[in-house]
């Protein structure tokens, strides 16, 4: 036990003495949290919108007003012809072109249907889909609103249509605030990356410098060395988590409905998994570069499949099964469940259980594969 304390003491001294790394460990993650949380949002807003009005009628102007009034769209310009507008889309200046045909108003009044032409920049398929929905909504809404006016032209025949009203109700996040969703997720990522990168590089560093050999010649036990090495990073992870949560609460006003103690408990176990992975990686690499690369590889895969940026439910079955082995997935879920919905122990106990098992296995493997003797 005392031996472990000696190692912990040395590790902390080395960490704090490294003046170049200190801002990276303490300042960089928090700056990223502040900046990136503001940027990460799938909301589609300020869509550059242009139109070609071949009709120049009261009706066409009213329709365009509806788009001008919408928050989703930013009116860039009116173009005299569709070709000119398409040229602008090539340049990337507009994403939507609405072309209103000649005789738009006349056709509507004379009881004929009429067709608008909508052109959308579909490079970003998901955004394009959403843009399409918004456009359809505005057009349908306008169509609905002019019906009573058109009635008078309808040969005196007005039938009220049946309608089913959808009333949206957004729980836990009425304003659909993306930050509420992203801040806990980004915090998870930052804590994970920091502890994984540092822990995987740390032991390899001693290998590269030769001090690991010196340690292996001493009678120190494997588990003493490993615990001593990883403990400081475990503490570091919790510290960054704390500061991150404070920032989340004070600056981003993220609700914290659930028990924060539960978050700490869960994070403590989670960090054991991450550190175990870092240790495992360092056992199989010879240089810091290799260790960092492998850590990077896993980090990217884990992040992409964590449900942070894209929902896990949308993945094909096989991919969803793969995410069961992704510790980040559980952390992201738990953070959101506890902070935003106030979920308690019973709801997350399965996640906890799985992570405990994971920690046990990965650390066991890591300790077993650490050889004092080659």
């Amino acid at each position, binding site marked *: 036990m*005392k*031996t472990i*304390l*000696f*190692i912990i*003491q*040395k590790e902390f*001294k*080395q960490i704090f*003495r*490294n003046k170049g790394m200190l801002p990276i460990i303490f300042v960089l993650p928090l700056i990223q949290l502040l900046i990136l949380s503001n940027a990460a949002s799938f909301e589609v807003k300020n869509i550059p919108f242009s139109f070609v009005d071949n009709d120049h009628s009261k009706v066409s102007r009213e329709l365009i007003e509806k788009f001008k009034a919408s928050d989703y769209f930013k009116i860039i310009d009116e173009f005299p012809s569709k070709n000119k507008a398409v040229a602008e889309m090539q340049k990337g200046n507009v994403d939507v072109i609405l072309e209103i045909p000649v005789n738009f108003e006349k056709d509507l009044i004379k009881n004929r249907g009429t067709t608008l032409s909508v052109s959308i920049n579909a490079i970003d398929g998901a955004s394009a889909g959403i843009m399409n929905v918004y456009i359809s909504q505005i057009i349908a809404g306008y169509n609905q609103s002019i019906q009573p006016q058109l009635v008078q032209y309808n040969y005196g025949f007005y039938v009220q249509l049946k309608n089913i009203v959808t009333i949206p109700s957004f729980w836990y996040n009425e304003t659909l605030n993306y930050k509420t969703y992203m801040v806990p997720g980004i915090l998870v990522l930052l804590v994970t990356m920091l502890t994984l990168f540092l822990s995987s590089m740390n032991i390899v560093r001693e290998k590269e*410098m*030769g*001090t690991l*050999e*010196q*340690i*292996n*010649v*001493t*009678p*120190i*036990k494997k588990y003493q060395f490993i615990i001593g090495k990883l403990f400081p990073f475990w503490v570091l992870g919790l510290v960054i988590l704390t500061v991150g949560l404070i920032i989340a609460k004070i600056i981003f006003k993220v609700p914290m409905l659930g028990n924060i103690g539960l978050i700490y408990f869960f994070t403590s176990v989670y960090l054991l998994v991450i550190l175990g992975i870092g240790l495992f990686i360092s056992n199989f690499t010879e240089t810091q570069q290799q260790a960092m690369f492998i850590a990077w590889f896993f980090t990217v895969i884990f992040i992409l499949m964590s449900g942070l940026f894209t929902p896990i439910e949308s993945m094909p079955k096989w991919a969803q099964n793969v995410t069961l082995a992704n510790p980040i997935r559980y952390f992201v879920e738990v953070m959101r469940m506890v902070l935003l919905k106030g979920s308690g122990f019973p709801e997350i106990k399965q996640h906890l259980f799985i992570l405990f098992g994971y920690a046990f296995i990965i650390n066991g493997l890591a300790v077993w594969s650490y050889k*004092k*003797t*080659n």
Partner: protein
Amino acid sequence: MNQEKIITVQNLTKTFGTFTAVKGISFDVYKGEIFGFLGANGAGKTTAIKMLIGISKPSSGKAVVAGYDVVENTESVKKSIGYMSQKFSLYDDLTIKENITFFGGIYGLSRKNIKLKMNDLLTELSLQDVANKLVGSLPLGWKQKLSFSIALLHEPQIVFLDEPTGGVDPITRRQFWEMIYAEANKGTTIFVTTHYMDEAEYCDRVSIMVEGVIEALDSPKKLKEQFNVASMNDVFLKLARNVE
């Protein structure tokens, strides 16, 4: 000199794939002697020493160090030996005091004991003024002496020194060997590898490894007589020439 054997090696072999670095060497080291383990770079010295200190598993053969088998009782071996690596393996980003505290602690010394030993060490090496300086800022010679002293903190029976004088000036080398003599006089067995043939003269007995095999093993005086030469350097040249 005591006839008690503190290291016995029988047919020790280490193979890496198809390459055999150490080819079944056998020798003994007596308690209290300064044993020089010589050879050219790449002869297999470092590989052999790594097996004796328990960080490399022999492919075959047997070695008993300080009464413990290096394969069966590796950890017990480690309690009884000290080691100074080629790179002097101290933490450059820790101070002298911190390095001493750390390694003392790893070997299980009590804090009180560590303090005592630290004071002795600092006084002996005249490092009191720089005790709180980072080891990385020290000149090579000081690092060398410090590394040696730290290897002895836990008062091991044997201390293994792997090329301890590499890159150090002749005066410092001389001073270092005086430290080795002092330690040997206390009864500690010294196992030192080097490629400086003049240092061979300082040892009680010397073995010379050539391409994984021990080609010569005796006291420097007897070896010079055997090969009819004036210096250990010439002994080595003769052996090396035989290989060609």
